[in-house]
């Protein structure tokens, strides 16, 4: 009898093109997503070697990192403009479909892939972007690659990949009310640190994961990379299948039912094992706020900024000291005493329609705190259109939020949206690295609900109590 396999091993085995002792496996890639920042040098490499794109039909491009989120066609930064024009030219030269800046399907690459049904269970998916792990929410093996690898996939539709170790992160129980998927993944990284996933692909399992919507699952898988794991995935189930039904690039009618059956069969075999297992209790998780300069520097909103002296190792003390200095925080100060001047709701982590609905629910009928600049940047043109249909834009605008067009925007500030030096931002994005949202900017990662509550209060507040107060008022 064959050894029982987990879902990661199953997908891997189905994609091995060539295997040889002492070498990584040559893996077939089912979907290659391309954006403007990490692709120009790859296309240039193809040209220099007179190579063509092997499977333009399995390649899909969008522009998202550089795009302005207002006055979309006025790209003041000429270098940004060159990069976007270069992608357009490359897609046209090599026959690749591009969701251009004014295309109704344009948006952040990790938002539109699932939205269009390009992302499907069992696929191998790559993109020159570390947050490609997002697509794992569908039970795909999806990971970020560098530009040389982008070139390799363009030329060969394959990649040499060492077989990863597998890690089962099992989340028991149910998340409490007011506790978001973002809090779950932040709490996991806060507990185990930013490198526990290095060398692993994570499968998230357990009752709490089963209870998540597809958009919540995307938030969880999106941040697998912040734990060091290149990929994180969730076994497809009826939630996955119903999300995909009817989307543009999935099979239709009877073909869809056949595909759905093959997706159900991806689930890990009875008795399948993993190289490592971690168990978490969902009930214990409170809304999270990062206080430092990596996503592992994270605590419940109800706690206090840590003291460097309480760390065990000298190197850890240094790390905390440096983070507190950069962040302008005092050891021991309550997280809820941290005042913010910027709020960013957006990014491939939290810019989908349910994220916007959740944030809108918190702010409805209230006003953004004086002195706070708050932005909502939908993840795609479709998300924006849907939100406007539901009237969410009105709720945001009436509260004092700026309502923008789709793009990566203030998550990494490659366009005009940035936090000024010394500014402090409650952000629904994924990285609180130094300078990420602007040179000298201070980032605190939170859920959309927590960001919305911070926008109203001008400081961090426990959204569980905040929402209660709103209900009672």
């Amino acid at each position, binding site marked *: 009898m064959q050894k029982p396999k987990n879902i990661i091993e199953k997908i891997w085995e189905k994609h091995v*093109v*060539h295997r040889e002792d*002492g*070498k*990584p496996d*040559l893996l*077939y890639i089912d979907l290659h997503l391309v954006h403007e*920042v*990490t692709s*120009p*040098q790859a296309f*240039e490499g193809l040209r220099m*070697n007179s190579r063509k794109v*092997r499977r333009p039909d399995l390649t899909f491009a969008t522009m998202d*990192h550089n795009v302005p989120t207002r006055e979309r066609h006025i790209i003041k*930064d000429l*270098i*940004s403009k*060159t*990069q976007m024009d*270069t992608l357009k030219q490359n897609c046209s030269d090599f026959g690749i479909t591009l969701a251009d800046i004014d295309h109704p399907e344009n948006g952040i690459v990790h938002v539109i892939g699932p939205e269009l049904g390009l992302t499907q269970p069992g696929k191998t998916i790559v993109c*020159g*972007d*570390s947050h490609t792990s997002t697509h794992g929410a569908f039970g795909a093996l999806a990971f*970020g*690659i*560098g*530009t*040389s*690898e982008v*070139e*390799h996939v363009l*030329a*060969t*539709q*394959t990649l*040499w990949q*060492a077989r990863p170790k597998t890690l089962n992160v099992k989340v028991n129980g149910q998340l409490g009310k007011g506790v978001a998927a973002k809090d779950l993944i932040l709490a996991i990284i806060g507990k185990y640190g*930013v*490198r526990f996933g*290095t*060398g692993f692909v994570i499968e998230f399992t357990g009752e709490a994961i089963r209870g998540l919507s597809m958009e919540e699952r995307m938030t969880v898988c999106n941040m697998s*990379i912040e734990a*060091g794991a*290149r990929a994180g995935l969730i076994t497809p189930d009826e939630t996955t299948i119903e999300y995909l039904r009817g989307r543009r690039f999935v099979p239709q009618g009877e073909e869809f039912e056949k595909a759905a059956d093959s997706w159900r069969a991806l689930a890990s075999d009875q008795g399948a094992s993993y190289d490592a297992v971690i168990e978490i209790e969902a009930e214990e998780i409170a809304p999270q706020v990062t206080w430092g300069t*990596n996503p592992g520097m994270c605590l419940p909103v109800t706690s206090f900024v840590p003291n460097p002296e309480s760390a065990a190792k000298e*190197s850890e003390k*240094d*790390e905390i000291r*440096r983070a507190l200095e950069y962040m302008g925080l005092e050891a021991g100060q309550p997280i809820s005493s941290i005042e913010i001047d910027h709020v960013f709701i957006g990014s491939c982590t939290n810019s989908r329609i349910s994220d916007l609905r959740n944030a809108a629910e918190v702010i409805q009928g209230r006003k953004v705190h004086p002195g706070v600049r708050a932005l909502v940047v939908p993840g795609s043109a479709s998300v924006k259109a849907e939100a406007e249909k539901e009237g969410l834009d009105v709720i945001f605008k009436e509260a004092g939020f700026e309502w923008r067009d789709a793009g990566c925007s203030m998550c*990494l*500030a*490659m366009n005009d949206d940035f936090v000024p*030096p010394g500014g402090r931002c409650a952000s629904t994005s994924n*990285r609180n*690295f*130094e*300078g*990420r949202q602007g*040179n000298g900017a201070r980032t605190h990662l939170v859920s959309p609900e927590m960001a919305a509550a911070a926008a109203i209060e001008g400081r961090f507040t426990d959204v569980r109590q905040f929402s209660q107060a709103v209900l009672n008022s």
Partner: protein
Amino acid sequence: MQPIRIHKGLVYPLNRANIDTDQIIPKQFLKRIERQGFGQFLFYHWRFKDDGSLREDFNLNDPKFKGASILVAGENFGCGSSREHAPWALQDYGFNIVIAPSFADIFKNNCVKNGILSVQLTDEQVQEIVNRAEQDSYQLTVNLEEQRIYDNQGFEASFDISPYSKEMLLNGWDDIAITLNIEDKIREFETAQH
């Protein structure tokens, strides 16, 4: 790509953990469409003040590390964004070898593709190198063939590397050419799928 066999060079110590690729090369420099010229932006906000002048308290600006080609850093080096601009910047600045207790997966792959050798040593070995390099001008020799790293003062360590990465680095190979040599296997796979 330049092959690496034996490399002797000056060591620059950057004794911090979790150095992410946003620090190695900040996003405002990712807009170029070439592979060259990123060295001037390496560790930009650690090296330069807002007005563009040098930060004297950042040790890469210390003249004694001028010409360094071996960087030694804390664990999880190269975490975060997949940007290959990070190894491009390191190499363009002059670093051909990076030593750390651990590396982020994507960064490590990106290094191999560009002929940069990432050497994983133990915490203690890395600390030893950092201490020596912080004190004086310190040279190390890396022998990739023998997977050995040593100085002329008695320090010596061996390191692991996958046979594939080793072969690529020793020969300075372009792996697309290697893959296209077995294109018939890719074609077979594609045919079997449809």
